[in-house]
């Protein structure tokens, strides 16, 4: 153990300390103090992460594990609590603490309307989230990952339901938690399976033996893990919680439901690439689920009017693309997209937050319009974000998305085509939102319009920084088409995949072919942006949706209703049936029935006691007769 890594535990510890201070001192601390502490610990953590990254990035760096203590060491279980510092975790560290810091700073302004205790509570939750997220990515084994995994779920639950006075928000929080739990159960089962197969749940312990395990077992394990990832990263069928999660404060959506937590599933699969690579069936499942989710969410996003909902579905869609990347074996591409997506999606959310802040919590884009002039900075950064997500070169999204599409093409044309369609839709709905929000005429009340103003510096600073990152963030992964060996990220992450032999199947494209396809896609994207502009830049009021298809989209394919009728309602009915009928009538009825039976027989039996001497003697005589027969003639 050398260098900064000795102190690696500080990275998660600092946010934890922040959480404790803010949480316990919430009635004492002023808002300013809370803001400083909350953001300060994260910035400190970020600085530490920078040092760590620096060390990890050095040539010839070997993965280091920082052992803290034995979590469970008994009865054949040996689960240490230790942190692993390698390229993957270092990268995630930077993203989490970096964007986390920005969002903390942003929040100090955004949440300023809250009273001090609630303000402190907010920062405490946020710090807690970062703590768990760091545990998730730093943990050196699946159990540690799981601790963080459920922890972020908890923080997400707490933050979605932050305004607990509103029961819709609480329901959204509950939904998020429960859906995550469904996934978590899968993950947990995967852990148990691994424990029984590998006898260990540390990454090193597992990956070492991965080659010796039958493929069927690996398939099972990886599929169960993927169920966990579905829950956390909002993939079909467990994606419906994420749009609802927009009930939380917008910075939370930016941090948790866009930039970091929801990418935990990608992290998990990227981390377990050694297992997934050996289980092609699982990979295919991942890819199929990924691309389906991407498409589905994109279609829904086309018709959403809530600014945050659009972003939420876009997140789901982008996450689907990342899974596609993982599914086709392009782990680097997946991780790359995580990173760029973190930049521009955080930017977009914060921008949306800025708009919402300015509009006094109005989120319907049909009630906005023409905000370009009022919010120049927000508008500018938001535009960058949109361009980045649409995949216009040289913005960040272009590079990562392109890499995914290329990898998809390598695997199957279908993936590629569907991926392209998704990208086109993405560009379309993002710019629909952009134009509806910032162009055209203001559609709200005049009173609202007069109050619209640019956000304070604490909010615009993160926007600017993130906008910058959205521009340059992709340059770490320039494909070989442009610059040979330009893919710094791939080189950086290479050791993570060392254990796996890259087997490239399918066709290999020549550079020229690749360039052409790239150009075609970009042109198509631009066309769809223009289409959006023509349709929405001057758009007036919202039209009533007439086509069935449009209604379907507007109502999100009725998936929530479907779930409600095939899962939620049945469970409630079964529950009530069990409680009212089975428990009280049948089981307890049987118990009470025994008592009633005794009562009944008591009532009957006491009729024998007729009070008549004659019948008493008669019964005596008859029983003597029976005893005689029994004793004398019943020779058994």
């Amino acid at each position: 153990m050398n260098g900064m890594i000795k102190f690696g535990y500080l990275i998660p510890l600092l946010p934890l300390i922040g959480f404790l201070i803010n949480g316990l001192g919430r009635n004492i601390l002023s808002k300013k103090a809370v803001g400083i502490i909350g953001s300060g610990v994260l910035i400190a953590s970020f600085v530490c992460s920078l040092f760590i990254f620096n060390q990890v990035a050095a040539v010839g760096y070997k993965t280091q594990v920082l052992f803290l203590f034995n979590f469970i060491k008994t009865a054949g279980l040996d689960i240490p609590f230790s942190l692993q510092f390698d390229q993957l975790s270092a990268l995630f560290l930077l993203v989490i603490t970096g964007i986390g810091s920005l969002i903390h700073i942003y929040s100090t302004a955004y949440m300023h309307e809250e009273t001090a205790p609630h303000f402190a509570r907010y920062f405490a939750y946020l710090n807690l989230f970062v703590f768990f997220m760091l545990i998730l990515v730093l943990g050196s084994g699946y159990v540690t990952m799981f601790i963080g995994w459920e922890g972020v779920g908890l923080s997400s639950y707490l933050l979605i339901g932050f305004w607990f006075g509103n029961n819709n928000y609480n329901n959204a929080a509950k939904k998020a938690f429960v859906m995550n739990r469904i996934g978590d159960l899968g993950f947990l089962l995967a852990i148990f399976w691994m424990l029984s197969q590998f006898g260990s749940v540390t990454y090193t312990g597992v990956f070492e033996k991965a080659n010796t395990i039958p493929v069927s077992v690996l398939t099972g394990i990886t599929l169960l893990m993927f169920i966990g990832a579905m829950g956390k990263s909002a993939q079909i069928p467990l994606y419906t919680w994420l749009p609802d999660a927009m009930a939380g404060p917008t910075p939370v959506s930016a941090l948790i439901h866009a930039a970091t937590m929801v990418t935990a599933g990608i992290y998990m699969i990227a981390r377990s690439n050694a297992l997934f690579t050996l289980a092609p069936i699982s990979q295919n499942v991942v890819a199929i689920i990924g691309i389906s989710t991407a498409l589905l969410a994109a279609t829904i996003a086309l018709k959403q009017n809530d600014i945050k909902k659009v972003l939420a579905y876009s997140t789901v869609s982008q996450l689907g693309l990342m899974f596609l990347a993982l599914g086709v074996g392009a782990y680097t591409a997946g991780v790359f997209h995580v990173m760029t997506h973190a930049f521009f999606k955080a930017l977009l959310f914060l921008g949306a937050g800025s708009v919402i802040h300015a509009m006094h919590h109005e989120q319907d884009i049909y009630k906005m319009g023409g905000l370009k002039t009022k919010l120049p900075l927000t508008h500018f950064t938001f535009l960058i974000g949109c361009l980045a997500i649409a995949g216009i070169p040289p913005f960040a999204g272009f590079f990562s998305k392109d890499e995914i599409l290329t990898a998809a093409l390598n695997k199957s044309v279908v993936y590629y085509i569907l991926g392209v369609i998704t990208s086109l839709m993405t560009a379309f709905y993002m710019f629909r939102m952009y134009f509806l929000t910032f162009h055209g005429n203001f559609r709200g009340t005049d009173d609202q319009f007069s109050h619209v103003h640019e956000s304070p510096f604490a909010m615009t600073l993160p926007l600017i920084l993130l906008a910058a990152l959205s521009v340059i963030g992709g340059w770490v992964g320039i494909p070989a088409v442009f610059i040979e060996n330009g893919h710094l990220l791939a080189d950086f992450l290479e050791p993570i995949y060392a254990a796996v032999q890259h087997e490239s199947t399918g066709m290999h494209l020549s550079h020229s072919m690749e360039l052409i396809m790239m150009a075609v896609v970009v042109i198509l994207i631009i066309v769809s942006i223009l289409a959006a502009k023509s349709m929405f830049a001057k758009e007036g009021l919202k039209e009533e949706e007439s086509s069935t298809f449009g209604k379907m989209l507007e109502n999100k394919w009725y998936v929530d209703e479907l779930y409600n009728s095939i899962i939620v309602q049945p469970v409630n009915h079964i529950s009530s049936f069990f409680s009212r009928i089975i428990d009280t009538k049948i089981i307890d009825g049987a118990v009470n029935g025994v008592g009633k039976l005794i009562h009944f027989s008591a009532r009957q039996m006491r009729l024998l006691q007729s009070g008549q001497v004659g019948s008493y003697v008669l019964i005596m005589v008859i029983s003597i007769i029976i005893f005689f027969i029994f004793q004398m003639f019943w020779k058994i």
Partner: protein
Amino acid sequence: MPITEILFWALSAAAIIAALLVIFSKNPVHSVLWLIVVFFAISGHYVLLNAQFLAIVNMIVYAGAIMVLFLFVIMLMNMNADQEPNKSKWMKIAGVLSGGSLMLLLVASLKNSQAIAGGGDAGIGLIQQLGKTLFSEYVVPFEISSVLFLSAMVGAVILGKKEKNLTEADSTN
């Protein structure tokens, strides 16, 4: 057929018939009288069995004292007429059936017993022998039975003493 056997059958028949008449007589006084007949028949059997002392005692105590007491009580209650309402028919049938089957069962289970062997007798049934045995071997139970009599006596006195104010202290049970 030796005379003892003839006597046996005659006495047995008398005893059983009289016994049946005891239970089937409507008039309690008749029952008492028939019961006395039974006792006489049994005393006859005692004589046949060389239990002369018991034969006498049976006549004196049972037929003489006890049955007179019964008769006395019946007379006291003025029950010489037939005034007993019939018990329900089923009860009677059940009673006869069960009593009869008990008899059959006992007979069936005891049918394989041995005969009385020999005919000799050291005269144990005579008063002299019995007296000796009673006051040597059985003096303790004899003395103890005095307690029995004492308590019976006290009991009869307690129950017989006249008490005034009869109250129907009969509440619901």
